[in-house]
Every structure is written in structure tokens, then in C-alpha cells.
């Protein structure tokens, strides 16, 4: 089997796992409280144990992951679109616009992300909506820089100059020649942004911004678990977090595989 086929198989497997977790979490009923099953350590019946209210931690973890995936995908998708628009505009507009965009990127990167997301989420009135907007407006900078650089490189090609000599408008060149070239970068950037978005989401939810406490988000689960650490209920914290780490590693791997496939140098190996 060639490396190409193996990479495609790996991508398919990861996508199936992620989609499975998402659908399972969305379809599942909330873990119900059952006081006869209170604070059980992990067993075959409850692989992740149960919490103080007797809720099955495996169910809660999958629901939380599903929520994280939704927030992460939405946030990184919108953020990547912003990055694409801003990056292309900066490189295409040159001069004043370019300077302004660079300044804007410096500005966004200068404020520690955690604080900026807190500020934006307060501005948007807290809740998951505020958190989502906060993550959207803090994660576009890196990708925008990459896209700007790529566009600058493509702009200097001869076929762009030829198109211009033929009297094509700037808009035509941008939509026909430049944006299609950016799509691979765009998708790779989006996937690689995804884990960051998830980690920021759960981190801020953990601090108490974002998801309301009755939602079984991973951040909520872990901040609840923190209160019972000293009583020795380690499974409340270890397993949900481990599941999150595995998710993040999988998505990272997905991004690398897609990169390998889309890069013409490594695609046919």
C-alpha cells in the first residue's frame, strides 16, 4: 500500500472517530442523576466512574466533547474565513491597507489571548456566545499572516502580470487566480486552528466564562472535579481531560495528513 492510500485511510478513520463522538454526544440524553450510583470509581459498568450526583462520567465526557467540537469547528471556521479575507486584502491592497493589517495583527497578538477573550466575552454579555465571538476574533492572526505572505508571492508571477495586461480587473484576478491558490492553506490553517480553539474554549469555561454550569462542557466538568480532588476522586478529572487531549491529538494528526496530501511535493509519494 502506498503512503498516499495509507494517509487517506488515516484521514477517513480520524474523521469517522470525530464525527462519531460528535453525533453520539448530540444524540445522547444528558446523564441522569442516580444517587444509588454515587461517587463510584471506574468499573466496567461505568468506565469513567460516576460523580457525586451519580451521573455517568463517560456520558458527560462524550457530551462535553461534542459541545467542544461544535464550538471549536464554528470558531475556527469563521476565524479562518476572516483570516482569508484579511490576508488577501492586505497583500492585494498593499500600502496603507497592508500597514493597517500588520498593525492590527500586532495589536491582537499583543494582548494575551486569555485576557482578550475574557474582555470580548464580557462585551458580548458572557455565555457561550461571548466565548465563541472571543475565540473567533483572537485566532485569525497567524493564518492571516501566512496567507498574506503567500498572496504576495503569487502576485509576482508572470501570469498575474499577463492577466493584468489583458485588462482583467483586480477583482477577477483575485477570485480566479489568487483565492483558488489559497484554498489548501486555508483548509490546513483551519484544521490546525481547531485544537487551539477547543483548548481555549475549555480553558475559559474552566475559569467560569462561557458555558453555563448546567452544560456538561469539559471545562465545567473539570472545574467541578477540582473541588473534589482532595477527597481522592481522581477519575473525575483524569478521564475527561484525557479524552480532550486525545481529541486534540487526533485533530492535529488530521491536519498533518491533509497537509501531506495537499502539498504537491509529498502528495504522490
Amino acid at each position, binding site marked *: 500500500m502506498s503512503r498516499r492510500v495509507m494517509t487517506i485511510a488515516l484521514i477517513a478513520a480520524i474523521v469517522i472517530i470525530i464525527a462519531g463522538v460528535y453525533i453520539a454526544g448530540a444524540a445522547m440524553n444528558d446523564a441522569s442523576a442516580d444517587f444509588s450510583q454515587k461517587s463510584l470509581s471506574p468499573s466496567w459498568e461505568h468506565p469513567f466512574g460516576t460523580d457525586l450526583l451519580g451521573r455517568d462520567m463517560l456520558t458527560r465526557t462524550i457530551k462535553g466533547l461534542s459541545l467542544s467540537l461544535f464550538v471549536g469547528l464554528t470558531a475556527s471556521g469563521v476565524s479562518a474565513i476572516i483570516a482569508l479575507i484579511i490576508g488577501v486584502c492586505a497583500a492585494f491592497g498593499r500600502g496603507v491597507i497592508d500597514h493597517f493589517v500588520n498593525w492590527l495583527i500586532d495589536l491582537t497578538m499583543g494582548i494575551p*489571548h486569555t485576557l482578550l477573550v475574557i474582555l470580548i466575552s464580557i462585551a458580548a454579555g458572557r455565555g457561550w456566545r461571548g466565548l465563541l465571538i472571543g475565540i473567533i476574533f483572537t485566532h485569525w492572526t497567524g493564518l492571516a499572516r501566512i496567507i498574506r505572505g503567500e498572496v504576495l508571492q503569487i502576485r509576482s508571477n508572470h501570469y498575474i502580470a499577463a492577466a493584468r495586461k489583458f485588462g482583467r480587473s483586480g477583482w477577477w484576478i483575485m477570485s480566479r487566480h489568487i483565492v483558488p491558490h489559497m484554498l489548501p492553506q486555508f483548509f490546513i490553517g483551519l484544521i490546525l486552528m481547531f485544537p487551539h480553539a477547543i483548548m481555549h474554549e475549555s480553558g475559559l469555561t474552566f*475559569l467560569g466564562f462561557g458555558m453555563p454550569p448546567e452544560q456538561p462542557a469539559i471545562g465545567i466538568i473539570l472545574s467541578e472535579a477540582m473541588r473534589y480532588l482532595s477527597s481522592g476522586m481522581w477519575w473525575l478529572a483524569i478521564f475527561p481531560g484525557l479524552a480532550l487531549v486525545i481529541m486534540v491529538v487526533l485533530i492535529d494528526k488530521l491536519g498533518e495528513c491533509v497537509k501531506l496530501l495537499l502539498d504537491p511535493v509529498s502528495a504522490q509519494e
Partner: protein
Amino acid sequence: MSRKIKSISIYLVRVVTLLIAVSVICFALVSLSPIDPMLAYIQANPGVSEENIARMEEFWGVNDPPAERYLKWGSALLHGDFGVSKIFRRPVIEIIGTRFAATLALMLAAWIFSGVFGFAIGCLMGMFNGRPLDSVVKRICLIMCSVPTFWIGLVFLIVFSVWLGWFPFGMSVPVGVAPENVTILQRLRHLILPALTLSFLSFANVALHTREKLVEVLHSDYVLFAKARGESNLSVLRRHGLRNILIPAVTMQFSSFSELFGGSVIAENIFSYPGLGAAASAAGLQSDIPLLLGITLFSVVFVFAGNAIANALYVLIDPRTTEGGK
């Protein structure tokens, strides 16, 4: 020389405009908020008379237009007055002053730890490039990059505090001991776990980055030549490797202040460490606007200082970048 002065002054102008923009944006964000600070305050402190509410509304200028409030706040800032914190009931500048010392100790410990050990591990990986040791450690580092700070903090607490009992459960000093009786050793003991947590992410970053650079250097022609002359691996690393990879590693460490600050918010919360980060999230949760704005502005200055040092180091240390600038 005049070129240098010109580039420095351009940089300064840029920093000042960025700072002004940060203050405008932060202020705008807070003003946009549908959360009414008066309402939040009254809910938190029931039993305030109507008369006092009116007096406080006037004192805080709640009913003035935002632009006017911004100018008032901005001119007070320039005089060094950051306002009074609502939750701590002390001037913001005082809180930042006392808490920054604690946060600085934490960040410095994490920063040095991740810098020194990350660099050492990175060198080790680079030296063993392609061999089992390298691929195992590299894989561990890649996984470390995917571990959220708040979870690893919890894991450290469970393993080292609850199970092994090596370290205390949080705070920066033992409970029930007067501040003047706390020994340095006790402080250090309380610092180790939060610092480890905070350094976790950047540690892997530094190691992977260093590895990449070292591999690049080791594949160069001058290293091949040095080996042909009979230099051992260690002396190649010492003479050719270290000098080339140290600058990017150091500048990278200085430009990571932003993540360091962001991470400290989370690490301090887990270990109930009384620093700036814990204060920032408390301020955010309880709508303590003056404190939150003060800490944000302070952190931005801190981050810009780090970036400026990184830029300056590049010019100062690397002989190639100074040559053209005479």
C-alpha cells in the same frame, strides 16, 4: 547611527499607537457590555439606599457618554491613576504592584525552567536525530503541545499533592503563618507545581524548535567539514551548534510573554496562587472593570517589552544583522 535612531523612533511610535489602540478597544469592549455595573454592584451589596445609588452613579459617571468617560479614564491613567478596584476596594495600581511580584516569581520560574530544560532536551533530540531516542522524545513533545494547561495542573495536583503528598495544595505561602515568618524554602515549595504547570506548554515548543534548528545546522556543509577534520559530536555542538541555535531560542522565549501571561491566569486559578492572573479572572467574573482594564493594559506593556527585548537581542547578538546597519 542615524538610521538606528530612526528605526528605534519608528518602533516607539508604533508601540505608543498600539498602546492607545489597546486602551480604546478594551474600553470600548467594556462599554459595549450589556452587563450593567451598577446593577451587578447592587445585587452583590443589597441594602444600598436610593440616595447612595444616585451618588455612586455620579461618582462612576455611569450616565456620561462613553467618549467622555474614556477621556476621563485616559487622562487619569496618564497621571498614574488606574481607579479603584470594586472587589478588593483598593487602588488598582496598588493591587497590580503587590500581585505582580508573586506572578513575576511564578512566570520567571516557569520561563527559566522551560528555557533551560527545553533547550537541553532539544539539543539532545537534535544530536540523536533519526534514532529511537529522538523519535520517542519528539512524540512526547508533540503530545505535550496538545495538553491543555488547566488539565495538566489538575493532574499534577492529584499525583504530587494528593497521592504522593510532596507538595502543598495551593496558595503561595503556608496557611496560618504570618507573612514575615515565611521562609524562602516554603515559598519555593509552593511555587514548584504552578511553575511546572505553566512551563509545560512552552517547554515542548522550545524543545521542538531547538531540535529543528540543530538538525538544520548539523546538515550544513561547515559541520560536515568539521567532522571531516575529526571533531567529535560534542565539540561540533559546542563550537558550531550552540552559537547558531541559541539566538532563535532566546528570542523565542522573550516573545512568548503573551502566552506566559495567558497561561498564568489559568495556572494561578488552579493553585489558588494570589497573583495577577487570578485577580484578572476574578475581576472578569465579578465585573470589576477598573481592575480588569488595569491588568490588561499592564499585561500589554509587559508583552511589548518582551517583544522589544527579543528584537533588540537579535540585533545585538547576531553579528550579521548589525553589519548592514552602520
